[in-house]
């Protein structure tokens, strides 16, 4: 029996790591939703696009190569040399900021004041458009992503736990690295929003547009800023997932897992997104471990939603949201 318990502990820890992933994607949603009221369906595709762009740049491939070749009859494919990971990451960040600027300039600037459902529809359009652009820019083959994150089973933990419990925990170095990077990212984001001028402007816009305008804050600027941050968060999520399972279109589906996370954590709470992500990650891993074998497995596909639904019924405002009491 203690063996079972230890096994469950290991499953939980691995679930926690998956949860970090969900939390990151949910974080991207929250950033944009808070500042603009837009529910960005494209967040998952942004992670995919960021990861594809990173791999493409790293491998020194020419973007839109297929298109260029079929129009001009040329045969370009690569620039002939690889680009160091750090530089490739910086370039990808620049691409995501450019994307944020374009999205604001071309789409949402013209939709200010529209119904939320219209804005939501626009992001659905954006998601499929971006998926198409990714394909056109970099092709649709599965790529392996390696930016130098440590991989493989962590021997120290395996040994340490084996000595302590007589049972070695299998934990991937990549997961540990991912958790640390995610923690740093969240800390930096929070410090940014609390202490910098841009962060204060962001919080102001999230709270009240009229008031923000009256103190001289440009809404457009803040919206480009939050889309850029969401793009960077998407890149980090894309790097983690891509390092683990390769860069492929299924990456965009992690957005679907962010949905129950948001139901749990609330749409406007950064701590909610983090804690919600971890709960869903651990919850679905443990459920699959305990109940999965009894009912034939594959419970990860739906358990998160059931958990979120049950939660919604009892706490519709989410984990950290304030309770809404209707005035009569």
């Amino acid at each position: 029996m203690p063996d079972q318990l230890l096994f469950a502990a290991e499953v939980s820890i691995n679930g926690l790591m998956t949860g970090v992933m969900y939390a990151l994607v949910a974080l991207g949603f929250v950033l944009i939703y808070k500042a603009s009221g837009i529910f960005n369906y494209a967040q998952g595709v942004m992670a995919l696009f960021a990861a594809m762009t990173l791999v493409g740049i790293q491998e020194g491939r020419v973007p839109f190569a297929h298109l260029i070749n079929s129009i001009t009859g040329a045969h370009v494919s690569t620039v002939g040399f690889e680009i160091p990971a750090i530089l490739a990451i910086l370039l990808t960040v620049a691409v995501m900021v450019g994307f944020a600027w374009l999205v604001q300039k071309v789409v949402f600037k013209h939709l200010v004041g529209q119904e939320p459902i219209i804005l939501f529809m626009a992001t659905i359009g954006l998601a499929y458009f971006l998926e198409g652009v990714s394909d056109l820019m970099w092709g649709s083959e599965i790529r392996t992503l390696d930016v130098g994150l440590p991989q493989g089973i962590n021997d120290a933990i395996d040994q340490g736990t084996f000595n302590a419990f007589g049972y070695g925990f299998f934990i991937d170095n990549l997961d540990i690295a991912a958790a640390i990077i995610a923690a740093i990212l969240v800390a930096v984001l929070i410090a940014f929003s609390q202490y910098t001028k841009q962060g204060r402007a962001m919080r102001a816009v999230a709270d009240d547009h009229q008031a923000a305008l009256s103190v001289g804050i440009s809404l457009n600027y803040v919206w480009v800023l939050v889309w850029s941050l969401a793009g960077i968060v998407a890149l980090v999520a894309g790097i983690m997932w891509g390092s683990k399972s390769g860069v492929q279109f299924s990456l965009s589906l992690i957005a679907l897992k962010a949905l129950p996370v948001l139901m749990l954590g609330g749409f406007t709470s950064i701590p909610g997104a983090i804690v919600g992500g971890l709960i869903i990650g651990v919850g679905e891993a443990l459920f699959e471990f305990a109940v999965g074998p009894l009912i034939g497995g594959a419970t990860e596909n739906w358990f998160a939603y059931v958990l979120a639904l049950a939660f919604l019924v009892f706490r519709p405002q989410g984990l950290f949201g304030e309770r809404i009491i209707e005035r009569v």
Partner: protein
Amino acid sequence: MLDQTVTADGRTIGGVVMEMRNITLRFGGVIAIKDISFDVREGEIRAIIGPNGAGKSSMLNVMSGFYHPQEGEVWFRGEKRRPMRPYQIARQGIARTFQNIALFDGMSVLDNIMTGRLNHMKSNFLEQAIWWGKAEREEVANRAKAEEVIDFLEIQSIRKTPVGRLPYGLKKRVELARALVAEPKILLLDEPMAGMNVEEKEDMCRFILDVNDEFGTTIVLIEHDMGVVMDLSDRVVVMDYGKKIGDGVPDEVRANQEVIDAYLGVSHD
């Protein structure tokens, strides 16, 4: 300056700082403002009065760039103003409050007031990130200015309170503080005393007079209550159904037959 005057209580009023020329504003078929012109002089307290729905708030919204008039020109500091977004106008030194209060409910009183200093922060992102030199000096200076305004408006005891929890009268005061901390050239106040009890009204009157007197801030203020307006302001514009029906010093306006009719003809609180 050529056209400087000194008031009875010793304040100096300078030349025209802002001028509205033939402003017309329509919402669909509704004409909120109909061909109105008036000016605001440096250092004065300029009131806009009129019954409900007269177009006063609309006028303030035109001045602060929240509404764009179909016709007319706005002149600011001797230049015709091109069409601008509200945030650009705020950055030119025109601060405002709202009739229905627009505060950041999720932030503390102090944080709300600090947002009024955002445009006084010139350090770049890197300097702020490492909290060094210019960024630190700016933050210290901004904090000092905020504390000065907090003392001035006597809201020390609520500095850390989340704004959402404050009673109405205090919210109005915090909104004034946020506008004031920006050190604006012109302060636009939309019914700063509406919904207040007598004591709160008296406090607010005193603050408005003190701001004008001590900082020399030009103030444009909308008010419902004739009595209050006559005490506070140097000059008054009277609006009714989108038209200007009076303009002058309080005594002139009070004697104007059209104004008397408008006020007697309409029930107001």
